């Protein structure tokens, strides 16, 4: 599934399911343009009550605050269902995610020296 149009950001989400967890690999931008697509794509996995949803950010090229907010929403929703969100391979976007408090609602790789 791909969201795209001329000059606008693109995001592709691919899935790999296990019994109790699903890995969603994001490729492209998690931006204002692609957030609706992100929410729409992730929602069915939330509805299926996986114990764990893993967002793999290794293919993310850009992230904006709305995108981080959408990831927080996923974490809050899955937590309400008794599951948890893990965000992996956050790389250069670590500080952006921590600034918005993703580490408060999801498992994310530790960021040394982060001061809120």
């Amino acid at each position, binding site marked *: 599934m791909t969201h795209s149009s001329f*000059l*606008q*950001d693109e995001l592709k989400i691919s899935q790999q399911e296990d019994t109790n967890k699903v890995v969603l690999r994001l490729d492209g*931008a998690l*931006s*204002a*343009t692609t957030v609706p697509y992100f929410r729409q794509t992730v929602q069915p996995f939330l509805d299926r009550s996986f114990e764990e949803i893993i967002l793999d950010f290794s293919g993310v090229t*850009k*992230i*904006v*605050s*709305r995108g*981080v*907010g*959408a990831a*927080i*929403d996923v*974490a*809050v*929703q899955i937590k309400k269902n008794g599951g948890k969100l893990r965000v992996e391979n956050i790389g*250069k*976007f670590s*500080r*952006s995610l921590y*600034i*918005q*408090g993703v580490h*408060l*609602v999801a498992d994310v790789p530790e960021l040394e020296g982060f001061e809120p």
Partner: protein
Amino acid sequence: MAERLVKMQMTIPPIEGIEDVPVAAVEALAAKMGFSPDRVQDIAQALTEACVNAIIYSESDADVEVIMLARQNSLILEVRDQGPGFEPDQVPAPNFEIISELGVKNGGFGIHMIKALVDQLEIESSKQGTVVRMSTFLSKSEN
């Protein structure tokens, strides 16, 4: 000899995603000035947020201006738009307790994000438009 100021300017149409172009230029400039890779990323992220805000709240086809002012020890970025403006002092700081319980349904994090990423943030806003001025200073270890 007086400290030299290098000024560069780019105008972009209010099209979502086009901010990648000035951001790439600023990344190159900040790296060339000697900012560490982490700080280059912070500057790029802050500029991305400022441009995205200018673009998504734009109510016309008026271009957004991105101005880069480089001195030996500082990089000042200005994003100027002709949008409807807002009251910067009325943008609340995020309440992480509420967010942890209820999530984030809308935006509102952009300004908070920029504040956290640059050394100094000034916002001038009126009904005629907004100027977001972000300053980052080279640390001694980066010099």
